[in-house]
């Protein structure tokens, strides 16, 4: 027996903000043109170098530096679709990027887990992916799923095991940040084809997308770019995330960090659309900040990620925004600082997608209850962005007239109706027997436990499950 997966509820902003002026955006566009034409990008992949050269880039094969004139960049980007659909297992879970909403995902791929049962910290395993996928499947705030941790108990092809656990435990779209070599990419796409069922549906609503990091400053990784090319050829969306670190792998200014990061991302988007014109791609700017006294990796304030959204749109492609993600060491006040506000800002800037819910310690630690708690912050952002219904029923002038001065509304039918329609949290403001409120951390823990016990999403068909297992075995044989 399986349980229904609740529908996804993306953030649907009723109003928007702009952070950069047109002039500032133009400065960044010109900056990227200048960096890519003058400084160039290092690309260690032979295959990619050839593609660049065939399409008008100035390639220094010896030093593996690619320089891109502005018209070459624009020609390639003109091919990239502004919108496309990232598929769920069923259409109800498709992410239609042309809709004016922001879909959010879990964070990934951490390396440690606080065990769901014993609550002890340990290295992450495949079962953690399965469990967190089920929790994510249940939560409406989560529209798509990143394998949250690494399947370290599967030393051969862990990234494919992460996909196996994901596809088997959620109906939502899966995006992977760990498929970064050509061979694993081929197997990953075979797996996606099994989930999609037909070649047509793999292309029109692919259930998988890839996330590839560029290497700040101004470089690419050979294996990862080759994986990206494999995905693009199959019609599987691939995004490029740049993570320049302000003060170490990027200048110590936000504008300089944006300039480095944007140039890297654009160089990769261009490559994909040179090789496969029209291939679905996305832009993802997720910089960090160097702790001035230790060099540790810290998250930036929210507006920095929201500017990334504006840059993506300037180039005419969708974005994956860094909306959550905390460097806090434990659950608590600090862990709640960034997520909701950053989500809110990115949504108001029109982000199509965002990720980062549910991990602590700079995206390295899975805490069982963090997803449920982040979902609360998400709800807040969602409601703050939703605007206001001012239809007569909501404006309620007749009720106000009927109650009159100094009356009260408790006994009105209107009150009963609307209070029932109000979406109250099931985590905060939960009353206890003493008339106070329960500790939200305990409520979140209970909710997580409840989900794990009671929510079992519709499984893949037996033949699909068997196919995935066969592909995994083939991959393990090849990669051993």
């Amino acid at each position, binding site marked *: 027996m399986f349980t229904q997966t609740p529908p996804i509820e993306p953030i649907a902003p009723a109003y928007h903000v702009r952070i950069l002026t047109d002039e500032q955006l133009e400065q960044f566009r010109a900056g990227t043109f200048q960096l890519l034409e003058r400084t160039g990008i290092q690309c260690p992949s032979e295959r990619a170098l050839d593609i660049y050269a065939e399409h008008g880039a100035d390639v220094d094969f010896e030093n593996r530096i690619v320089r891109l004139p502005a018209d070459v960049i624009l020609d390639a980007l003109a091919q990239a679709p502004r919108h496309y659909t990232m598929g769920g297992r069923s259409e109800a879970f498709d992410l239609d990027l042309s809709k004016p909403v922001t879909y959010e995902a879990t964070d990934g791929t951490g390396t440690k887990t606080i065990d769901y049962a014993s609550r002890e910290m340990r290295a992450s395993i495949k079962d953690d992916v399965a469990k967190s996928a089920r929790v994510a499947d249940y939560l409406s705030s989560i529209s798509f799923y990143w394998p949250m941790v690494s399947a370290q108990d599967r030393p051969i092809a862990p990234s494919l095991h992460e996909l196996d656990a994901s596809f088997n435990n959620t109906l939502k779209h899966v995006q992977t940040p760990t498929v970064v070599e050509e061979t694993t990419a081929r197997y990953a796409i075979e797996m996606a084809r099994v989930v999609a069922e037909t070649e047509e549906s793999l292309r029109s609503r692919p259930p998988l997308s890839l996330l590839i990091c560029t290497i700040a400053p101004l470089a690419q990784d050979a294996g990862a770019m080759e994986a990206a090319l494999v995905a693009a050829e199959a019609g599987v969306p691939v995004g490029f995330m740049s993570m320049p670190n302000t003060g170490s792998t990027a200048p110590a200014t936000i504008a300089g960090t944006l300039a480095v990061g944007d140039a890297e991302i654009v160089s990769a988007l261009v490559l994909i659309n040179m090789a496969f014109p029209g291939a679905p791609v996305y832009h993802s700017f997720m910089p960090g900040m160097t702790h001035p*006294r230790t060099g540790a990796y810290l998250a930036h304030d929210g507006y920095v990620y929201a500017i990334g959204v504006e840059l993506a749109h300037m180039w005419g492609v969708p974005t994956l925004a860094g909306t959550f993600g905390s460097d806090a060491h434990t659950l608590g006040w600090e862990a709640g600082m960034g997520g909701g506000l950053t989500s809110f800002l990115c949504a108001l800037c029109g982000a199509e997608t965002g990720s980062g819910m549910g991990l602590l310690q*700079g995206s390295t630690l899975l805490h069982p209850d963090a997803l449920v708690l982040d979902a609360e912050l998400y709800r807040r952002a969602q409601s703050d962005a939703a605007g206001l219904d001012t239809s007569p029923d909501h404006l309620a002038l007749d009720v106000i007239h009927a109650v009159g001065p100094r009356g009260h509304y408790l006994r009105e039918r209107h009150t009963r109706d609307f209070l029932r329609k109000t979406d109250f949290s099931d985590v905060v403001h939960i009353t206890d027997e003493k008339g106070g409120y329960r500790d939200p951390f305990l409520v979140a823990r209970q909710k997580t436990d409840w989900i794990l016990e009671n929510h079992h999403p519709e499984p893949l068909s037996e033949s699909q499950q068997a196919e995935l297992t066969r592909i995994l075995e083939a991959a393990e044989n090849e990669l051993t």
Partner: protein
Amino acid sequence: MSVDAIFQSILERKRSDIAPLVQAEIDAGTEISVILNDGLIGAMDVVGRQFGDGLLFVPELLVAAETMKTGLEVLRPKLVGSEITNRGTVVIGTVQGDLHDIGKNLVSMMVEGAGFAVVDLGVDVAPERFLEAAREHRPQVVGLSALLTTSMPAMRRCIELFEDAEIDVKIIVGGAPVNQEYADEIGADGYGSDAPGAVRLIKRLVTET
């Protein structure tokens, strides 16, 4: 005393001042060990303490270390063949398959700042290259950095290769997903959770040898 001036130029991070100061001191006949220990290493000990106390930012530490290194370069010809050496040599790199180097660079920089000669092999370093570098530079310590769970096995391969080659060197490991338990499991000689920890660890291992 102008060893003081050398000392000060490191504290004040005057990268372009130090070479002539060291040269002048050599010309004046000051003992090489005094220039090295009281001037260069002494100053870096203070810089290290200031950094530990939170007074210095990372890029300031880096430039102080580079200032010291510039001074050391002037001194180096005098050190060759003499009894006086720096604190020791450390070969460091990010293991095969891994391109993360922010943490490894920090460790390199602090170890260098603490008076060790550091040979940084960069990223995506194959076990064979670590071995080659160990044969060439004869370090007391080899440091392996890994940020990916998928590149951690390359640490184990590296340690096995060193064992087979019977090279007498301490191998230490670090990087966010690595911990003491894993270090013990693969037979590493030590684990450091951050750059100051790496320096303490290396100092301890070097005195032990």
